[in-house]
């Protein structure tokens, strides 16, 4: 079943996940497909480059509207071979765009993008794969998605797309385990992709509970930027990441710790719970959590839902974006 597109329309959506193979790219592409099938266009940015493609056109991957969201095997995360008219290339980065879609792509691959791209702007500086262009598809066709590795340039791209009104809906296929990107993007909805297997599903369910707990941390009442380190003797504002070292050096008498947002919490669950027993932990800014994107391997949906509990499973937007049969 396809995703509900209204969950993602008119805003910035950041997809991240705890590790390689967590299904964030599969989910991001499923979101793009759902939006396309609802008749909307989208802007898509990846962090880094998703695989490589041949420099020449003519590969078999070119398909029209509503085609696949990538040649990768969703079950294994492995990249498929693409029969381009050059040397064999990995095509994991290919995404089907429709006319009007906006995307970020390396200059070197603009000419191999099949969508007749119109160059809208150039991202400042150069990435590991050369200059990055923001482009718009003038017809349906495959593209290579890319993007900068750092938050600053990612935020620049998103800001440009919104300011110029090139797109209303933006999907960012984010970095692994880099929730800090959410804080860099204006009012982004954060989706967290998790892959649960027989060997790790209890660990994963705990990680999801912890993530949800962090995302629900209360907002501090005096949360404006540029506040002093201490609002009063009982509260302590942490300007950077909240680490165990910071916890150990909190001034005596502190009752409330204020972190900028939950992405700045660099504590594992046990450290955090220990800190929470001693202090009330609040955030200056709330990040918008959109939900979990779960992909299951060797685990039944009901079984995983039960171990997660109703609270967490209520935040799952998809258990399998590839599900297509009864």
């Amino acid at each position, binding site marked *: 079943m396809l995703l509900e597109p209204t969950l993602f329309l008119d805003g910035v959506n950041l997809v991240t996940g705890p590790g390689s193979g967590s299904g964030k790219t599969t989910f991001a592409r499923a979101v793009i497909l759902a939006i396309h*099938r609802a008749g909307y266009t989208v802007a898509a940015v990846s962090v880094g480059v998703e695989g490589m493609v041949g420099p020449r*056109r003519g590969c078999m991957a*070119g398909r*029209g509207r509503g085609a696949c969201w*990538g040649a990768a095997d969703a079950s294994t995360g492995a990249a498929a071979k693409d029969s381009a008219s050059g040397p064999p290339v990995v095509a994991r980065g290919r995404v089907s765009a429709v006319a009007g879609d906006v995307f970020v792509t390396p200059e070197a691959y603009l000419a191999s993008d099949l969508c007749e791209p*119109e*160059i809208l702007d*150039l991202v400042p500086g150069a990435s590991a794969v050369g200059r990055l262009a923001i482009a718009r598809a003038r017809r349906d066709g495959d593209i290579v998605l890319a993007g900068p590795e750092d938050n600053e340039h990612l935020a620049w791209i998103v800001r440009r797309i919104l300011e110029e009104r090139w797109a209303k809906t933006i999907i960012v296929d984010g970095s692994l385990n880099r929730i800090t990107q959410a804080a860099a993007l204006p009012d982004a909805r954060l989706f967290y992709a998790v892959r649960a297997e027989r060997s790790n599903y209890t660990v994963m369910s705990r990680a999801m509970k912890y993530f949800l707990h962090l995302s629900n941390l209360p907002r501090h009442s005096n949360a404006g930027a540029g506040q002093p380190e201490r609002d009063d003797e009982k509260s302590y504002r942490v300007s950077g990441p909240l680490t165990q070292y910071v916890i150990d050096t909190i001034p005596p008498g502190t009752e409330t710790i204020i972190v900028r947002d939950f992405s700045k919490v660099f504590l594992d669950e046990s450290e955090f719970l220990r800190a929470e027993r001693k202090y009330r932990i609040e955030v200056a800014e709330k990040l918008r959590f959109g939900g979990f994107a779960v992909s299951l391997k060797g685990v039944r949906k009901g079984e995983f839902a039960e171990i997660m509990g109703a609270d967490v499973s209520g935040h799952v937007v998809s258990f399998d974006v590839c599900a*297509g*049969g009864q």
Partner: protein
Amino acid sequence: MRRDVVCSASAWNFAQMEDVWRHFKPQTPYGRDRVAEKTVYVEPDVLASLYDDVEAFGDFVERLGPDRSRLDKISWHLGRIPRLPVLWGEATTDGQRQSVSGPKDKTYESAVDIFLYKKFLANYSKLCDLVDAKTRDHFALEFKSGDILSLLSLGGSDAETFYISEKYDSRLLEIRNSIAEIGRKIEAKRTRAAETVKETLGIDFSGRDFVTVPRATGLELLKRDDLNSKWHLYIEVNDEYSFIARLVPDSEMLMLESERSKLYETERIIEDAVIADLSERLKAESALVEAYVGIVSRFDLAKSRFELGKKYNLRRPAFVAGDRGRGQEERGIRMVVRQGIFIPLCAECGKMGTKYTPLDIALNRNAAVIFGSNMGGKTVVLKSLLFFQLMAQTGLGVPAASYVTTLFSAIDYVGDRPDTAAKGLSSFGFEVRALSDIVEKAASRTCLVAFDEFAQTTSSREAEALLSSVVSFFSRAQKPCLALFATHFQGLARDTAALYFRMAGLDVAAARRYFGELADSAGAYSLAERIKNINTIMRYYVVPEDAEKGAADADGSDALEVASLLGLDEKILAAARAYRCGAGRGNR
């Protein structure tokens, strides 16, 4: 001349130039390049041209009157000027294009390069339209590339964007129509196949390349022998609970895709030819474009200098000839500042709620010594003078009612430097080393040097001897120079060729009032309050050394009073006063 050639990093830092420099914000990449270079100019004609540019921009703003919409548009277009790629020529070491008209070794550039040229030309032409005739004439802001811009505008849905339009080559229209037609056929076939599979087998692809189906469904499908031949379905195991179903293309679809691939290839060849042609056209325009880069950079810098000038009330300085005498060699140096404001300190005073005293001083000899007690402000005078000079020689203008000065080809600083720690030399060692370098420079260049508490780490007698000698040396330097000394050593030999000043120091009456209050309050003042009070009773202006003292002590030193104000133990202070009056002098 670049900053590191004229002005040492230590002088730049001592003058706290970054406090202002970071607000100098041109909008174009070319303007930002100049800012990053931190150029300190020594050529009077170059500086005159910079100040003329700022005035020309200011006149333009004045002619615009209260309506700022045109200025907003100018800012908008300047902010969109991109850095042009190096085409047809070699990049110089500073990243600038040496020449865009040299021999080219590439057959064509990329679409991104063409895009950048289009974006540059589109915004540059708008800028030319937005300024009035006088400003256009002053900056030579003329746009003569209408033809190439019109050509580039054929490809793009707005003034800046770019794609390779069919208008560049009519064959593209036919090819793209064919690609679209094949795309429709492929899409129709895929949709039909997917719908049939959904209706018959219950598998919903919904545009996806593959889907997962429950294990039971997968096993049922595997029993069919027409899965591939009829339904073009491929089934494989996903995990113990599901299978993956994939639609594979039939032979007709493969044929269509193959045909489309060939069209893509042909399209690419034509597009490459279009880019090569556009690139050639741009090459013919290269001399003009190169000129545009210089003009827009100049205009951008004038605008940002003007804005900085408005922010800080900066004025154009007057440069005197120095040793560039007309016919007869001029040996003298002049530096006259009236109501000069050292912006970094003035801002700090504003934050602390204390009063800032502007600087008035006139220097017309090669060496000037400023005496003063601790916290008396003599170091600030040195900082201020270096700051004013750098503001003047970077073309920003000076925050003063008036500033007359000489152009210096070397600006340096000798004194405490945080960057000299742990390099194998003591502070004194570094000072002597720096002094030696400057002495060498002074033989061939017009130097401005600030010596802040030179030799303060050595014994006072030796320090005074050395300092007296250095003052004397610079007073009679081979080339005109200005050596400024701030010191608390009063025992310097006075050289008739040098100037001697002192900070006015404590306001005695106010200090006595404060001491009285202090006694009453029994030490209730915090350190911050004490510092603030010192600021209110200290007179931070420069007077000739022989001016009537009126300061707290006859020796001209306020150090003990300052120590008292800072809360030093009264017994220690009393003993110190006794020593100073002679009771403690002699061997112990």
